[in-house]
């Protein structure tokens, strides 16, 4: 099998890059985990194809867009489902997480703390809780330890990272109201290679 050289560019946080970092670790494939400090970002922006990160570089060629990066790596390493239909479900789940973050993102732009808190509460009630309710139903209906089929996919990795982010940063106490989702997070985090990366990765706030 051909050897490729990989570089992943992102900020020094978990967030959008983390599922990709997990994929590399699960596959046992070496890569350069390039972490750009926020103050340094303006110096690098023009190097990136669409002026954004994360970016994946494969043998010198750059690829932007989080979902494209997840799909590419998941395809290379075998974490994209076992059929076209499963792959579509993986993509559906990835798209659904993106929708939730798009709904939340404008709230961070708000300066007034009281306003921000109100908007966050509305987001939790109107968007997050209905979303987690549907996700939990879907997870139960699938009947395995995973969201798609009966093996780990990049959708599971993204959801794991996302649930952890809500618990630790954005909406503490909410994921805990969904025992199956909280249970999924706990169980997946114990899988050996996943646990290994969680333990050895740089410790960051987000």
């Amino acid at each position: 099998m051909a050897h490729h050289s990989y570089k992943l560019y992102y900020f020094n946080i978990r967030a959008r890059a983390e599922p990709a970092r997990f994929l590399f670790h699960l596959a046992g494939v070496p890569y350069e985990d390039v972490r750009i400090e926020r103050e340094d970002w303006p110096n690098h922006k023009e190097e990136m194809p669409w002026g954004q990160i994360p970016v994946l570089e494969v043998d010198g060629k750059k690829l932007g867009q989080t979902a494209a990066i997840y799909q590419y790596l998941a395809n290379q390493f075998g974490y994209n489902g076992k059929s076209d239909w499963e792959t579509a479900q993986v993509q559906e789940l990835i798209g659904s997480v993106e929708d939730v973050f798009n709904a939340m993102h404008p709230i961070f732009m708000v300066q007034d703390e009281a306003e921000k808190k109100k908007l966050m509460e509305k987001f939790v009630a109107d968007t997050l809780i209905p979303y987690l309710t549907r996700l939990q139903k879907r997870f139960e209906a699938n009947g395995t330890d995973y969201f798609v089929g009966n093996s780990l996919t990049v959708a599971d990795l993204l959801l794991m990272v996302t649930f952890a982010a809500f618990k630790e940063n954005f909406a503490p106490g909410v994921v805990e109201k969904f025992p199956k989702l909280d249970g999924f997070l706990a169980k997946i985090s114990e899988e050996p290679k996943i646990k290994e990366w969680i333990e050895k990765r740089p410790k960051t706030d987000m």
Partner: protein
Amino acid sequence: MSPPHYKLTYFNMMGRAEPMRLMFAYAGVPYEDNRIEKEQWPALKSHMPNGQIPVLEVDGKQLSQSMAISTFLAKKFGLDGKDDWESAKVQEMLGTLDDVKLKFRPWMMEQDANKKAEIFKTVLTETIDPYLERLSETLKKNGSGYFVGQKPTQVDFHLFHIFNWWQQGNIATESIKKHPELVAFTEKMGSNPKIKQWLEKRPKTAM
């Protein structure tokens, strides 16, 4: 093995479903074009797996999220690039288009005509013009007349829909005119007999 039965459910408009309808037409694959009126939506919402449309039903199994639907069909119709890298480049372009569409939202949501015009001016200079510039560069650099690889991919259908819609609605006309390759691309796609046939027979809606 009998071909799958496809049903695409969306509002009676082009919007997020149109690139898929264009692909069905191009591939010559029959499907049920299930259009629902806005008043019917609240009652149907709870029946959709994620409370959203478009939804693609394949032999009774439902799939939501336009990119998932589009990619699933693109793979079936040979419109997803020739290898994993091209397929990833296709996803990258779909993602950047989605980012651009997000920036349109305030303009689309605004009801007041004056405010709407003001918002559009900003969207034009900050988002549309730079984006068209990038698209034009990408098309020229790729050199095949398509945005990724040597043959049509789903990206070409998504972008054709946007340009065709703008043409129809006289949106950003001056901006597009600055890019003859984008104009030529739109004409080339539109003159494909299968696409042309669909454009002529499809229900006429503003969006």
